[in-house]
């Protein structure tokens, strides 16, 4: 069992020694059940930290903001950022290290193991508990989830309420860390791509109709892109402007930036946006499924990324985010890579 007090002690120690600028963790939010990210820079404030199955956010996302901040500051604080990560979050961190967006010294990793369980799915919870206000969610020693409401405690098998991705988890505890809390449990899902089956079993026409319906809902709020730790490009294909503009960028360069899609939230443009994003994440997505969680219209975009993750595994035997020294998928090749496209 991961002990919250141990977590607080680790965070407090590293803040007291002034080894880090601040620690990013989870705190109780002012509204609803789900927590909110918290940035702690005083050792006493570690009391705000929580740890339970609602700690869903991938806090690695905030490392890109940190990098931007350092670039802009005249005298940046060079100390690392303390980061609390789960297994999946740590894989995102590894991808950022592989791509050299950050260096190892930029982050002090406080790893927390999910210990055979994971995080809850808000929608599954809402279905099971409907209008009842949930006061607390925690794991018990037998890896069950215990939900406390006004009416008392309900125990259930974690699998009933866990996020889909946790049922297909490839990294139950962080793959990289400076300190690790919790057991190094092993969980090998029988079929790591099981959730794809319900869509893979549809005919081509059914799949096309499915995506037409789902992607018509999209309002292009870009929450999916904004929450993804791997979507950090200053010059994103999807934007009509390039953020990496300086005083020396000529008018021609700006005028010639290709407009790959229109701002209009119509089906054709929505398709292009989501598919380009999925392709740009191929071999990089580690299935934190934050993109799907944040979508206000409940579009199941996780399917797109998962499908490409499966392709990466089947074609190239590649799993993203395990080895920071391994070159990224699209930046390397092996002799045994399939060449059936070469005629």
């Amino acid at each position, binding site marked *: 069992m991961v002990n919250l007090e141990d977590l607080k002690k680790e965070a407090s120690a590293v803040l007291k020694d002034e080894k880090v600028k601040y620690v990013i963790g989870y705190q109780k939010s*002012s509204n609803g059940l789900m927590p909110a990210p918290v940035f702690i820079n005083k050792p006493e404030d570690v009391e705000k930290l929580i740890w339970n199955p609602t700690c869903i956010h991938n806090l690695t996302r905030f490392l890109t903001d940190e990098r931007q901040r350092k670039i802009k500051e005249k005298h940046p604080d060079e100390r690392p950022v303390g980061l609390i990560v789960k297994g999946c979050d740590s894989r995102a961190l590894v991808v950022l290290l592989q791509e050299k967006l950050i260096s190892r010294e930029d982050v002090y990793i406080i790893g927390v193991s999910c210990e055979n369980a994971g995080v809850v799915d808000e929608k599954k919870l809402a279905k099971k508990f409907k209008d009842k206000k949930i006061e607390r969610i925690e794991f018990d020693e037998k890896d069950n989830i215990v939900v406390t409401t006004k009416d008392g405690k309900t125990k259930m098998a974690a699998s009933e309420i866990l996020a889909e991705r946790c049922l297909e988890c490839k990294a139950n505890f962080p793959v990289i860390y400076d300190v690790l809390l919790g057991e190094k449990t092993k969980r090998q899902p029988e079929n790591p791509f099981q959730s794809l089956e319900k869509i893979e079993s549809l005919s081509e026409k059914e799949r096309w109709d499915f995506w037409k319906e789902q992607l018509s809902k999209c309002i292009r709020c870009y929450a999916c892109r904004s929450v993804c730790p791997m979507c950090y490009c200053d010059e994103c294909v999807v934007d009509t402007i390039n953020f990496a503009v300086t005083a020396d960028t000529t008018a021609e360069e700006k005028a010639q930036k290709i407009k790959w899609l229109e701002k209009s939230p119509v089906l054709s443009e929505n398709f292009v946006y989501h598919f380009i994003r999925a392709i740009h994440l191929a071999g990089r997505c580690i299935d934190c499924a934050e993109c799907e969680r944040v979508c206000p219209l409940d579009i199941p975009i996780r399917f797109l990324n998962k499908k490409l993750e499966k392709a990466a595994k089947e074609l190239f035997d590649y799993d993203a985010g395990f080895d920071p020294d391994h070159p990224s998928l699209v930046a390397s090749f092996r002799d045994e890579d399939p060449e059936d496209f070469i005629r």
Partner: protein
Amino acid sequence: MEKVLAKKSFPQWVKILSSYKIFAPVEKENLWNYELIENPEKVNLDYLNTVLSPKKIIFPQREIYLEFSAENEDGLKVEEVLPDEKPSVIFGVRPCDAKSLTLTDKVFGGDFEDIYYWSRRKQMALVGLSCSTPPSPNCFCLTVDGSPFSKDGLDVIMTDLGDKYFIETLTKKGEQLVSTAKALFKTPTEKDKKDLLKIQQEAKKLIKRQVESIKKIPPKLKEMFDASLWDEESMSCIRCGICTYLCPTCHCFDINDEVDSHSPLKGKRIRTWDNCQFPDFTMHSSGHNPRPDKASRLRQRIMHKFQYFVERYKNYQCTGCGRCISQCPVGIDIIEVLDKVRDYGA
């Protein structure tokens, strides 16, 4: 006038109004959103609130302004494209969403009336559904001069009395909607009126969240442009567009040309929703950005809603629907931020 309508007669009312375009909340995979109703039998008001407010019907996310073409010898032709003007009714509008339309009216009216907005707005009738219980745990309409029974912006207001609706018409348009289906409506009994009163009194007590002393906030904000609060509160913002796109009072938009053919030139000029939380919203072509960071953009959102709009239009630009709080991916809570603004420096 005051009437009652049996719940089972409600679909008939909708059917009789078939000469109007009807919009109502529709459920798909557990989410409710306003849609054009093809089948009046299916209209159901048993819902909390929609993801997107009815603003999207009057101020759609995509609007065609004009079409341009240089197809023939005469050279470039530019033609205005106006929305079709069939009279419409939106059912199931929560009082907060109705009030928000009175606020967007101020923006799209005034000098240079926006013809696209008004050609829809003028022929739109709004039938509200009062909130016997708050649709969201984050509702705070009472704080921003609203109420679960507010009539602002509505033509008719309906209250759920269990097996029937209490109906109150508020405008001539509203009266017409009811008189068209006269036979379905009955006179309310004394008990009906008592039940209504009881629900109204209870409803206010059920709204749990509020911002105390909100009147202090607009003048306080005026002095807080350089406060460190904005940096602290925006640390976890991921600068998506959820808060502003879901907000019933937000109205920022973009205008772009979409080209269907380059030679001969043919295309459209399109208005789409835009978002002050996107990093490129205020960016000049030169690369200079007056709001280059999340702190300045969060400050803009709060200042615009609770100071600039108040100064210009004497109303908070917020109706307390709670959508931004419920849907923010990182739990940024506008009520919390306002509390901190009010108490800043104390």
